[in-house]
Protein backbone atom coordinates (compact mmCIF):
# COMPACT_ATOMS: atom_id res chain seq x y z
CA UNK A 1 0.00 0.00 0.00
CA UNK A 2 2.77 2.40 1.01
CA UNK A 3 4.61 1.36 -2.08
CA UNK A 4 1.63 2.36 -4.22
CA UNK A 5 1.43 5.70 -2.54
CA UNK A 6 5.11 6.40 -3.08
CA UNK A 7 4.73 5.53 -6.71
CA UNK A 8 1.74 7.85 -7.07
CA UNK A 9 3.66 10.61 -5.36
CA UNK A 10 6.67 10.08 -7.63
CA UNK A 11 4.48 10.30 -10.72
CA UNK A 12 2.87 13.45 -9.44
CA UNK A 13 6.23 15.07 -8.78
CA UNK A 14 7.44 14.07 -12.23
CA UNK A 15 4.43 15.67 -13.85
CA UNK A 16 4.81 18.78 -11.78
CA UNK A 17 8.46 18.98 -12.79
CA UNK A 18 7.42 18.89 -16.44
CA UNK A 19 5.09 21.83 -16.02
CA UNK A 20 7.67 23.69 -13.97
CA UNK A 21 10.15 23.23 -16.79
CA UNK A 22 8.06 25.42 -19.08
CA UNK A 23 7.59 28.04 -16.38
CA UNK A 24 11.32 28.03 -15.66
CA UNK A 25 12.11 28.38 -19.35
CA UNK A 26 9.88 31.42 -19.59
CA UNK A 27 11.40 32.93 -16.47
CA UNK A 28 14.88 32.18 -17.82
CA UNK A 29 14.14 33.96 -21.06
CA UNK A 30 12.77 36.99 -19.24
CA UNK A 31 15.79 36.99 -16.93
CA UNK A 32 18.32 36.88 -19.77
CA UNK A 33 16.45 39.60 -21.64
CA UNK A 34 16.29 41.75 -18.52
CA UNK A 35 19.90 41.37 -17.39
CA UNK A 36 21.39 42.34 -20.71
CA UNK A 37 18.77 45.02 -21.27
CA UNK A 38 19.58 46.60 -17.93
CA UNK A 39 23.26 46.63 -18.86
CA UNK A 40 22.28 48.17 -22.19
CA UNK A 41 20.15 50.87 -20.63
CA UNK A 42 22.94 51.78 -18.21
CA UNK A 43 24.84 53.00 -21.27
CA UNK A 44 21.99 54.23 -23.48
CA UNK A 45 19.23 56.46 -22.19
CA UNK A 46 15.80 54.87 -22.35
CA UNK A 47 14.42 58.18 -23.63
CA UNK A 48 16.79 58.11 -26.60
CA UNK A 49 15.86 54.48 -27.17
CA UNK A 50 12.24 55.34 -27.67
CA UNK A 51 12.58 58.77 -29.30
CA UNK A 52 15.68 58.68 -31.51
CA UNK A 53 14.63 58.15 -35.10
CA UNK A 54 17.75 56.34 -36.19
CA UNK A 55 19.02 52.87 -35.43
CA UNK A 56 22.70 52.58 -36.33
CA UNK A 57 24.43 50.57 -33.57
CA UNK A 58 26.78 48.95 -36.05
CA UNK A 59 28.00 52.20 -37.61
CA UNK A 60 30.70 54.44 -36.28
CA UNK A 61 28.17 57.15 -35.52
CA UNK A 62 25.86 55.20 -33.26
CA UNK A 63 22.19 55.88 -32.75
CA UNK A 64 19.98 53.66 -30.64
CA UNK A 65 16.44 54.63 -31.59
CA UNK A 66 14.18 51.55 -31.71
CA UNK A 67 11.47 53.42 -33.67
CA UNK A 68 12.67 52.42 -37.16
CA UNK A 69 12.72 48.76 -36.17
CA UNK A 70 9.37 49.13 -34.48
CA UNK A 71 7.74 50.77 -37.49
CA UNK A 72 9.25 48.09 -39.72
CA UNK A 73 7.75 45.40 -37.50
CA UNK A 74 4.38 47.11 -37.23
CA UNK A 75 4.23 47.88 -40.94
CA UNK A 76 4.81 44.29 -42.07
CA UNK A 77 2.45 43.01 -39.37
CA UNK A 78 -0.20 45.53 -40.37
CA UNK A 79 -0.04 44.45 -44.01
CA UNK A 80 -0.26 40.81 -42.96
CA UNK A 81 -3.30 41.47 -40.76
CA UNK A 82 -4.93 43.48 -43.54
CA UNK A 83 -4.70 40.37 -45.72
CA UNK A 84 -5.40 37.72 -43.14
CA UNK A 85 -8.37 39.11 -41.21
CA UNK A 86 -10.81 39.63 -44.09
CA UNK A 87 -9.71 36.47 -45.89
CA UNK A 88 -9.50 34.34 -42.78
CA UNK A 89 -12.89 35.45 -41.51
CA UNK A 90 -14.57 35.07 -44.88
CA UNK A 91 -13.22 31.55 -45.18
CA UNK A 92 -14.35 30.74 -41.64
CA UNK A 93 -17.86 32.00 -42.32
CA UNK A 94 -18.01 30.22 -45.65
CA UNK A 95 -16.87 26.91 -44.18
CA UNK A 96 -19.23 27.22 -41.27
CA UNK A 97 -22.40 28.51 -42.84
CA UNK A 98 -22.32 27.91 -46.57
CA UNK A 99 -20.10 24.95 -47.40
CA UNK A 100 -21.24 21.36 -47.03
CA UNK A 101 -19.68 19.45 -44.13
CA UNK A 102 -17.91 17.24 -46.66
CA UNK A 103 -16.25 20.23 -48.27
CA UNK A 104 -15.25 21.66 -44.90
CA UNK A 105 -13.68 18.40 -43.83
CA UNK A 106 -11.51 18.37 -46.94
CA UNK A 107 -10.61 22.05 -47.07
CA UNK A 108 -9.83 22.72 -43.42
CA UNK A 109 -6.84 20.35 -43.17
CA UNK A 110 -5.50 21.65 -46.48
CA UNK A 111 -5.81 25.18 -45.20
CA UNK A 112 -3.93 24.28 -42.06
CA UNK A 113 -1.01 23.12 -44.19
CA UNK A 114 -0.41 26.82 -44.84
CA UNK A 115 0.68 27.16 -41.24
CA UNK A 116 2.97 24.15 -41.54
CA UNK A 117 5.01 25.40 -44.50
CA UNK A 118 8.52 26.23 -43.27
CA UNK A 119 8.77 29.99 -43.06
CA UNK A 120 12.05 29.99 -44.96
CA UNK A 121 10.08 28.69 -47.94
CA UNK A 122 7.62 31.56 -47.55
CA UNK A 123 10.57 33.96 -47.35
CA UNK A 124 12.00 32.89 -50.66
CA UNK A 125 8.53 32.73 -52.15
CA UNK A 126 8.10 36.39 -51.19
CA UNK A 127 11.54 37.41 -52.46
CA UNK A 128 11.71 35.39 -55.67
CA UNK A 129 8.10 35.24 -56.75
CA UNK A 130 5.84 37.79 -55.10
CA UNK A 131 8.19 40.77 -55.27
CA UNK A 132 8.97 40.35 -59.02
CA UNK A 133 5.26 39.80 -59.64
CA UNK A 134 4.32 42.96 -57.74
CA UNK A 135 7.01 44.91 -59.56
CA UNK A 136 5.07 44.32 -62.78
CA UNK A 137 2.31 46.49 -61.34
CA UNK A 138 4.28 48.75 -59.00
CA UNK A 139 7.44 49.68 -60.91
CA UNK A 140 9.06 51.64 -58.07
CA UNK A 141 8.76 48.75 -55.63
CA UNK A 142 12.18 48.02 -54.15
CA UNK A 143 13.75 44.58 -54.43
CA UNK A 144 13.52 44.35 -50.66
CA UNK A 145 10.26 45.83 -49.43
CA UNK A 146 7.67 45.62 -46.68
CA UNK A 147 4.74 44.86 -48.96
CA UNK A 148 5.70 41.47 -50.33
CA UNK A 149 6.71 39.75 -47.07
CA UNK A 150 3.71 41.40 -45.40
CA UNK A 151 1.35 39.85 -47.93
CA UNK A 152 3.01 36.45 -47.71
CA UNK A 153 2.98 36.59 -43.92
CA UNK A 154 -0.72 37.41 -44.19
CA UNK A 155 -1.29 34.20 -46.11
CA UNK A 156 0.71 32.29 -43.54
CA UNK A 157 -1.44 33.46 -40.62
CA UNK A 158 -4.79 32.87 -42.37
CA UNK A 159 -5.13 29.40 -40.80
CA UNK A 160 -4.72 30.85 -37.31
CA UNK A 161 -7.69 33.12 -37.91
CA UNK A 162 -9.79 30.67 -39.88
CA UNK A 163 -9.31 27.73 -37.59
CA UNK A 164 -10.04 29.53 -34.31
CA UNK A 165 -12.82 31.66 -35.76
CA UNK A 166 -14.45 28.62 -37.28
CA UNK A 167 -14.38 26.92 -33.90
CA UNK A 168 -15.93 30.00 -32.32
CA UNK A 169 -18.66 30.17 -34.97
CA UNK A 170 -19.35 26.48 -34.61
CA UNK A 171 -19.75 26.95 -30.86
CA UNK A 172 -22.62 29.39 -31.37
CA UNK A 173 -25.71 27.40 -30.35
CA UNK A 174 -27.73 26.22 -33.35
CA UNK A 175 -30.84 27.57 -31.62
CA UNK A 176 -29.65 31.09 -32.50
CA UNK A 177 -29.25 30.05 -36.11
CA UNK A 178 -32.78 28.64 -36.08
CA UNK A 179 -34.13 31.81 -34.49
CA UNK A 180 -32.61 33.90 -37.22
CA UNK A 181 -33.65 31.67 -40.12
CA UNK A 182 -37.07 31.31 -38.54
CA UNK A 183 -37.59 35.03 -38.92
CA UNK A 184 -36.83 34.97 -42.60
CA UNK A 185 -33.19 36.03 -42.39
CA UNK A 186 -30.87 35.05 -45.23
CA UNK A 187 -27.64 33.14 -44.69
CA UNK A 188 -25.71 36.35 -45.08
CA UNK A 189 -27.81 38.19 -42.48
CA UNK A 190 -27.63 35.26 -40.10
CA UNK A 191 -23.86 35.02 -40.47
CA UNK A 192 -23.09 38.70 -40.02
CA UNK A 193 -25.82 39.87 -37.67
CA UNK A 194 -26.09 36.87 -35.36
CA UNK A 195 -23.21 34.44 -35.65
CA UNK A 196 -20.26 36.82 -35.95
CA UNK A 197 -21.39 39.02 -33.04
CA UNK A 198 -22.10 35.95 -30.93
CA UNK A 199 -18.66 34.54 -31.73
CA UNK A 200 -16.90 37.88 -31.48
CA UNK A 201 -14.77 37.03 -28.45
CA UNK A 202 -13.38 33.92 -30.13
CA UNK A 203 -12.80 35.84 -33.33
CA UNK A 204 -10.96 38.59 -31.43
CA UNK A 205 -8.75 36.01 -29.77
CA UNK A 206 -7.93 34.47 -33.14
CA UNK A 207 -6.97 37.85 -34.56
CA UNK A 208 -4.79 38.71 -31.60
CA UNK A 209 -2.97 35.40 -31.78
CA UNK A 210 -2.43 35.94 -35.49
CA UNK A 211 -1.01 39.41 -34.78
CA UNK A 212 1.35 37.94 -32.17
CA UNK A 213 2.49 35.39 -34.68
CA UNK A 214 3.12 38.06 -37.31
CA UNK A 215 5.00 40.32 -34.88
CA UNK A 216 7.37 37.53 -33.97
CA UNK A 217 7.78 36.16 -37.48
CA UNK A 218 11.45 36.26 -38.47
CA UNK A 219 12.41 34.31 -41.54
CA UNK A 220 10.01 35.82 -44.08
CA UNK A 221 10.86 39.40 -43.24
CA UNK A 222 14.58 38.67 -42.79
CA UNK A 223 14.71 37.27 -46.31
CA UNK A 224 12.38 39.58 -48.18
CA UNK A 225 12.02 42.87 -46.31
CA UNK A 226 15.66 43.88 -46.22
CA UNK A 227 18.00 45.05 -43.48
CA UNK A 228 17.71 48.78 -43.59
CA UNK A 229 16.24 50.26 -40.42
CA UNK A 230 14.16 53.05 -41.82
CA UNK A 231 11.49 55.12 -40.14
CA UNK A 232 8.78 54.82 -42.76
CA UNK A 233 5.26 53.55 -43.29
CA UNK A 234 5.77 53.27 -47.02
CA UNK A 235 5.27 49.60 -47.93
CA UNK A 236 7.30 49.99 -51.11
CA UNK A 237 10.44 50.73 -49.11
CA UNK A 238 12.88 48.28 -47.65
CA UNK A 239 12.49 48.02 -43.87
CA UNK A 240 14.07 46.09 -41.04
CA UNK A 241 12.02 44.46 -38.33
CA UNK A 242 13.13 43.80 -34.75
CA UNK A 243 13.40 40.10 -35.47
CA UNK A 244 15.48 40.66 -38.60
CA UNK A 245 17.85 42.86 -36.67
CA UNK A 246 18.31 40.23 -33.98
CA UNK A 247 19.13 37.63 -36.60
CA UNK A 248 21.49 40.02 -38.35
CA UNK A 249 23.49 40.71 -35.20
CA UNK A 250 23.52 37.25 -33.75
CA UNK A 251 24.69 35.76 -37.07
CA UNK A 252 27.25 38.52 -37.60
CA UNK A 253 30.68 39.11 -36.11
CA UNK A 254 29.72 41.51 -33.34
CA UNK A 255 31.79 40.67 -30.23
CA UNK A 256 29.72 39.27 -27.39
CA UNK A 257 29.35 41.33 -24.24
CA UNK A 258 29.71 44.55 -26.22
CA UNK A 259 27.17 47.34 -26.32
CA UNK A 260 26.37 46.44 -29.92
CA UNK A 261 25.66 42.90 -28.91
CA UNK A 262 23.36 43.96 -26.09
CA UNK A 263 21.19 45.94 -28.45
CA UNK A 264 19.54 42.69 -29.49
CA UNK A 265 18.39 42.07 -25.93
CA UNK A 266 16.87 45.51 -25.64
CA UNK A 267 15.18 45.01 -29.02
CA UNK A 268 14.08 41.52 -28.02
CA UNK A 269 12.62 42.79 -24.77
CA UNK A 270 10.61 45.41 -26.66
CA UNK A 271 9.18 42.76 -28.95
CA UNK A 272 8.51 40.47 -26.02
CA UNK A 273 6.56 43.19 -24.23
CA UNK A 274 4.33 43.62 -27.27
CA UNK A 275 3.49 39.95 -27.66
CA UNK A 276 3.19 39.54 -23.90
CA UNK A 277 0.58 42.29 -23.71
CA UNK A 278 -1.30 40.88 -26.69
CA UNK A 279 -1.36 37.39 -25.23
CA UNK A 280 -2.69 38.77 -21.98
CA UNK A 281 -5.44 40.66 -23.76
CA UNK A 282 -6.51 37.50 -25.53
CA UNK A 283 -6.38 35.56 -22.26
CA UNK A 284 -8.52 38.22 -20.63
CA UNK A 285 -11.08 38.18 -23.47
CA UNK A 286 -11.31 34.41 -23.31
CA UNK A 287 -11.84 34.48 -19.54
CA UNK A 288 -14.38 37.25 -19.65
CA UNK A 289 -16.59 35.90 -22.41
CA UNK A 290 -16.31 32.18 -21.82
CA UNK A 291 -19.47 30.39 -20.63
CA UNK A 292 -21.62 33.06 -22.15
CA UNK A 293 -24.25 30.48 -23.07
CA UNK A 294 -24.01 28.25 -20.04
Amino acid sequence: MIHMRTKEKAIEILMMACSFLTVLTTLGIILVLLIDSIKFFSEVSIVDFFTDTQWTPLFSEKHFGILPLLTGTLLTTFIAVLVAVPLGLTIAIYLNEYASPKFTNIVKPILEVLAAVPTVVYGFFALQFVTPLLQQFIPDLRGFNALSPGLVMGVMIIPYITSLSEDALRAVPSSLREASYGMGATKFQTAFKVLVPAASSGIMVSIILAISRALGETMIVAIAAGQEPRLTFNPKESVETITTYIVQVSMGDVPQDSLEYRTIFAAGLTLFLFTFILNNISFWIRKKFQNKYE
Partner: protein
Amino acid sequence: MDYKLEAKNANLWYGNKQALKDITLSIEPNSVTAFIGPSGCGKSTLLRCFNRMNDLIEGSRIKGEFLLDKANIYKDIEVYDLRKRVGMVFQKPNPFPKTIFENVAYGLRINGINDKKLLAEKVEWSLKNAALWDEVKDNLNNSALSLSGGQQQRLCIARTLAVEPTVVLMDEPASALDPISTAKIEDLIYELKNKFTIVIVTHNMQQAARVSTKTAFFYLGELIEFDETKKLFTNPEEEKTQNYITGRFG
Protein backbone atom coordinates in the same frame (compact mmCIF):
# COMPACT_ATOMS: atom_id res chain seq x y z
CA MET B 1 -64.21 28.26 -45.59
CA ASP B 2 -60.95 30.11 -46.23
CA TYR B 3 -58.38 28.11 -44.39
CA LYS B 4 -55.17 29.73 -43.21
CA LEU B 5 -52.94 26.68 -43.38
CA GLU B 6 -53.51 23.42 -45.16
CA ALA B 7 -51.64 20.18 -45.61
CA LYS B 8 -52.82 17.95 -48.44
CA ASN B 9 -51.57 14.37 -48.61
CA ALA B 10 -48.36 15.54 -47.03
CA ASN B 11 -45.44 13.12 -46.67
CA LEU B 12 -41.97 13.76 -45.36
CA TRP B 13 -38.87 11.61 -45.18
CA TYR B 14 -35.66 12.09 -43.22
CA GLY B 15 -33.34 9.97 -45.33
CA ASN B 16 -35.14 6.64 -45.57
CA LYS B 17 -37.29 7.18 -42.54
CA GLN B 18 -40.79 8.40 -43.22
CA ALA B 19 -41.76 10.94 -40.57
CA LEU B 20 -45.10 12.09 -41.99
CA LYS B 21 -47.56 9.78 -43.68
CA ASP B 22 -50.19 11.19 -45.97
CA ILE B 23 -51.41 13.93 -43.71
CA THR B 24 -54.34 16.12 -44.64
CA LEU B 25 -55.58 18.83 -42.33
CA SER B 26 -56.82 22.41 -42.50
CA ILE B 27 -56.37 25.17 -39.97
CA GLU B 28 -58.79 28.06 -39.60
CA PRO B 29 -57.61 31.64 -39.23
CA ASN B 30 -57.51 33.19 -35.74
CA SER B 31 -57.66 29.86 -34.01
CA VAL B 32 -55.34 27.95 -31.73
CA THR B 33 -54.61 24.47 -32.97
CA ALA B 34 -52.75 22.03 -30.76
CA PHE B 35 -50.67 19.13 -32.11
CA ILE B 36 -50.35 16.34 -29.57
CA GLY B 37 -48.93 12.83 -29.60
CA PRO B 38 -46.03 10.79 -28.22
CA SER B 39 -42.42 11.66 -29.08
CA GLY B 40 -41.51 10.88 -32.67
CA CYS B 41 -45.11 11.04 -33.88
CA GLY B 42 -44.31 13.77 -36.40
CA LYS B 43 -46.08 16.69 -34.75
CA SER B 44 -42.99 18.93 -34.63
CA THR B 45 -42.03 17.82 -38.12
CA LEU B 46 -45.39 18.87 -39.51
CA LEU B 47 -45.20 22.17 -37.65
CA ARG B 48 -41.81 22.88 -39.16
CA CYS B 49 -43.11 22.18 -42.66
CA PHE B 50 -45.31 25.24 -42.45
CA ASN B 51 -42.33 27.58 -42.40
CA ARG B 52 -39.89 25.25 -44.07
CA MET B 53 -37.56 24.91 -41.11
CA ASN B 54 -37.09 21.30 -42.15
CA ASP B 55 -35.11 22.62 -45.12
CA LEU B 56 -32.23 23.13 -42.69
CA ILE B 57 -32.08 19.40 -42.01
CA GLU B 58 -30.00 17.58 -44.56
CA GLY B 59 -31.68 14.67 -46.28
CA SER B 60 -35.27 15.75 -45.66
CA ARG B 61 -37.68 15.65 -48.58
CA ILE B 62 -41.40 16.14 -48.94
CA LYS B 63 -44.27 15.03 -51.14
CA GLY B 64 -47.70 16.54 -51.15
CA GLU B 65 -48.92 20.08 -50.70
CA PHE B 66 -48.57 22.63 -47.92
CA LEU B 67 -50.64 25.77 -48.39
CA LEU B 68 -50.65 29.18 -46.77
CA ASP B 69 -53.68 31.26 -47.79
CA LYS B 70 -54.14 28.84 -50.70
CA ALA B 71 -50.58 29.44 -51.98
CA ASN B 72 -48.17 26.52 -52.14
CA ILE B 73 -45.55 27.04 -49.45
CA TYR B 74 -42.87 25.11 -51.29
CA LYS B 75 -43.55 26.48 -54.77
CA ASP B 76 -45.32 29.81 -54.87
CA ILE B 77 -43.80 31.63 -51.92
CA GLU B 78 -40.19 32.62 -51.46
CA VAL B 79 -38.82 30.98 -48.31
CA TYR B 80 -37.65 34.23 -46.67
CA ASP B 81 -41.03 35.79 -47.29
CA LEU B 82 -42.78 32.70 -45.98
CA ARG B 83 -40.88 32.78 -42.71
CA LYS B 84 -41.80 36.40 -42.20
CA ARG B 85 -45.46 35.52 -42.63
CA VAL B 86 -45.23 32.32 -40.60
CA GLY B 87 -43.21 33.01 -37.46
CA MET B 88 -41.85 30.41 -35.10
CA VAL B 89 -41.24 30.15 -31.37
CA PHE B 90 -38.93 27.36 -30.27
CA GLN B 91 -38.84 24.92 -27.41
CA LYS B 92 -35.96 26.50 -25.54
CA PRO B 93 -35.91 30.29 -25.26
CA ASN B 94 -33.25 31.38 -27.77
CA PRO B 95 -32.77 35.14 -27.50
CA PHE B 96 -29.75 36.57 -29.29
CA PRO B 97 -26.90 37.77 -27.08
CA LYS B 98 -27.99 41.34 -27.76
CA THR B 99 -30.06 43.89 -25.86
CA ILE B 100 -33.77 43.37 -25.29
CA PHE B 101 -34.50 46.13 -27.79
CA GLU B 102 -32.20 44.72 -30.46
CA ASN B 103 -33.67 41.26 -30.09
CA VAL B 104 -37.14 42.51 -30.95
CA ALA B 105 -35.80 44.88 -33.61
CA TYR B 106 -33.86 42.10 -35.34
CA GLY B 107 -36.63 41.03 -37.68
CA LEU B 108 -37.33 44.64 -38.59
CA ARG B 109 -33.69 45.41 -39.23
CA ILE B 110 -33.23 42.46 -41.56
CA ASN B 111 -36.18 43.86 -43.47
CA GLY B 112 -34.29 47.09 -43.90
CA ILE B 113 -36.18 49.14 -41.32
CA ASN B 114 -33.71 51.43 -39.57
CA ASP B 115 -35.87 54.44 -38.74
CA LYS B 116 -35.45 54.93 -35.00
CA LYS B 117 -38.94 56.12 -34.26
CA LEU B 118 -40.57 53.35 -36.25
CA LEU B 119 -38.34 50.74 -34.61
CA ALA B 120 -39.21 52.03 -31.15
CA GLU B 121 -42.92 51.94 -31.95
CA LYS B 122 -42.80 48.42 -33.33
CA VAL B 123 -40.68 47.14 -30.46
CA GLU B 124 -43.15 48.57 -27.96
CA TRP B 125 -46.11 47.11 -29.86
CA SER B 126 -44.47 43.68 -29.98
CA LEU B 127 -43.47 43.66 -26.33
CA LYS B 128 -46.96 44.73 -25.32
CA ASN B 129 -48.49 41.96 -27.39
CA ALA B 130 -46.14 39.49 -25.76
CA ALA B 131 -47.17 40.77 -22.29
CA LEU B 132 -43.60 41.70 -21.48
CA TRP B 133 -43.60 45.48 -21.90
CA ASP B 134 -44.34 46.41 -18.30
CA GLU B 135 -41.53 44.22 -17.02
CA VAL B 136 -38.81 45.46 -19.36
CA LYS B 137 -39.79 48.95 -20.52
CA ASP B 138 -37.17 50.60 -18.29
CA ASN B 139 -34.42 48.14 -19.18
CA LEU B 140 -34.64 47.87 -22.94
CA ASN B 141 -30.89 48.22 -23.26
CA ASN B 142 -30.08 45.41 -20.87
CA SER B 143 -28.87 42.14 -22.28
CA ALA B 144 -31.67 39.74 -23.16
CA LEU B 145 -29.69 37.03 -21.39
CA SER B 146 -30.26 38.84 -18.08
CA LEU B 147 -33.98 37.97 -18.23
CA SER B 148 -35.51 34.92 -16.57
CA GLY B 149 -36.38 31.88 -18.69
CA GLY B 150 -40.05 32.78 -18.87
CA GLN B 151 -39.30 36.37 -19.77
CA GLN B 152 -36.82 35.19 -22.40
CA GLN B 153 -39.51 33.05 -23.99
CA ARG B 154 -41.96 35.94 -24.06
CA LEU B 155 -39.16 38.04 -25.56
CA CYS B 156 -38.79 35.42 -28.28
CA ILE B 157 -42.51 35.63 -28.89
CA ALA B 158 -42.25 39.43 -29.11
CA ARG B 159 -39.36 39.04 -31.55
CA THR B 160 -41.50 36.78 -33.71
CA LEU B 161 -44.50 39.13 -33.56
CA ALA B 162 -42.41 42.16 -34.53
CA VAL B 163 -42.46 41.33 -38.23
CA GLU B 164 -46.25 40.95 -37.98
CA PRO B 165 -46.66 37.40 -39.18
CA THR B 166 -50.18 36.09 -39.68
CA VAL B 167 -49.32 32.65 -38.32
CA VAL B 168 -47.25 31.86 -35.22
CA LEU B 169 -45.94 28.31 -34.85
CA MET B 170 -44.97 27.28 -31.35
CA ASP B 171 -42.88 24.19 -30.75
CA GLU B 172 -43.45 23.21 -27.11
CA PRO B 173 -43.01 26.83 -26.07
CA ALA B 174 -43.45 26.22 -22.35
CA SER B 175 -41.77 22.87 -21.88
CA ALA B 176 -38.58 24.43 -20.48
CA LEU B 177 -40.41 26.79 -18.13
CA ASP B 178 -41.70 26.72 -14.56
CA PRO B 179 -45.48 26.54 -13.89
CA ILE B 180 -45.95 30.28 -13.31
CA SER B 181 -44.13 31.22 -16.50
CA THR B 182 -46.07 28.51 -18.30
CA ALA B 183 -49.36 30.00 -17.13
CA LYS B 184 -48.28 33.39 -18.46
CA ILE B 185 -47.41 31.92 -21.84
CA GLU B 186 -50.76 30.13 -21.97
CA ASP B 187 -52.67 33.33 -21.17
CA LEU B 188 -50.66 35.01 -23.85
CA ILE B 189 -51.49 32.36 -26.45
CA TYR B 190 -55.16 32.80 -25.65
CA GLU B 191 -54.82 36.56 -26.22
CA LEU B 192 -52.78 36.24 -29.38
CA LYS B 193 -55.36 34.25 -31.27
CA ASN B 194 -57.37 37.45 -31.75
CA LYS B 195 -54.66 38.75 -34.04
CA PHE B 196 -52.80 35.66 -35.20
CA THR B 197 -53.35 32.09 -36.18
CA ILE B 198 -51.56 29.90 -33.67
CA VAL B 199 -50.37 26.34 -34.03
CA ILE B 200 -48.81 24.84 -30.93
CA VAL B 201 -47.03 21.54 -30.42
CA THR B 202 -47.24 20.33 -26.86
CA HIS B 203 -46.52 17.29 -24.74
CA ASN B 204 -48.79 18.60 -22.08
CA MET B 205 -52.38 17.51 -22.67
CA GLN B 206 -53.83 19.83 -20.05
CA GLN B 207 -52.11 22.65 -21.86
CA ALA B 208 -53.62 21.58 -25.16
CA ALA B 209 -57.03 21.40 -23.53
CA ARG B 210 -56.63 24.83 -21.93
CA VAL B 211 -55.39 26.89 -24.85
CA SER B 212 -56.57 25.33 -28.08
CA THR B 213 -59.79 25.44 -30.06
CA LYS B 214 -58.93 22.39 -32.13
CA THR B 215 -56.57 19.53 -31.45
CA ALA B 216 -54.81 17.07 -33.74
CA PHE B 217 -53.53 13.76 -32.41
CA PHE B 218 -50.61 12.16 -34.22
CA TYR B 219 -49.18 8.70 -33.87
CA LEU B 220 -46.18 7.26 -35.73
CA GLY B 221 -46.33 9.88 -38.46
CA GLU B 222 -50.04 9.59 -39.04
CA LEU B 223 -52.82 11.97 -38.19
CA ILE B 224 -55.16 9.83 -36.11
CA GLU B 225 -57.78 12.36 -35.18
CA PHE B 226 -58.43 16.06 -35.66
CA ASP B 227 -61.40 17.68 -34.00
CA GLU B 228 -62.72 20.34 -31.66
CA THR B 229 -60.50 20.21 -28.57
CA LYS B 230 -63.44 19.65 -26.26
CA LYS B 231 -64.74 16.75 -28.31
CA LEU B 232 -61.33 15.14 -28.79
CA PHE B 233 -60.61 15.15 -25.07
CA THR B 234 -64.03 14.10 -23.86
CA ASN B 235 -65.38 11.89 -26.57
CA PRO B 236 -62.71 10.83 -29.09
CA GLU B 237 -63.68 8.78 -32.12
CA GLU B 238 -60.54 6.69 -32.23
CA GLU B 239 -59.40 4.14 -29.71
CA LYS B 240 -55.76 5.23 -30.06
CA THR B 241 -56.71 8.77 -29.11
CA GLN B 242 -58.68 7.48 -26.15
CA ASN B 243 -55.71 5.41 -24.99
CA TYR B 244 -53.30 8.30 -25.35
CA ILE B 245 -55.33 10.94 -23.55
CA THR B 246 -56.12 8.59 -20.71
CA GLY B 247 -52.40 7.91 -20.34
CA ARG B 248 -52.38 4.29 -21.39
CA PHE B 249 -49.31 4.95 -23.58
CA GLY B 250 -47.12 7.83 -24.70
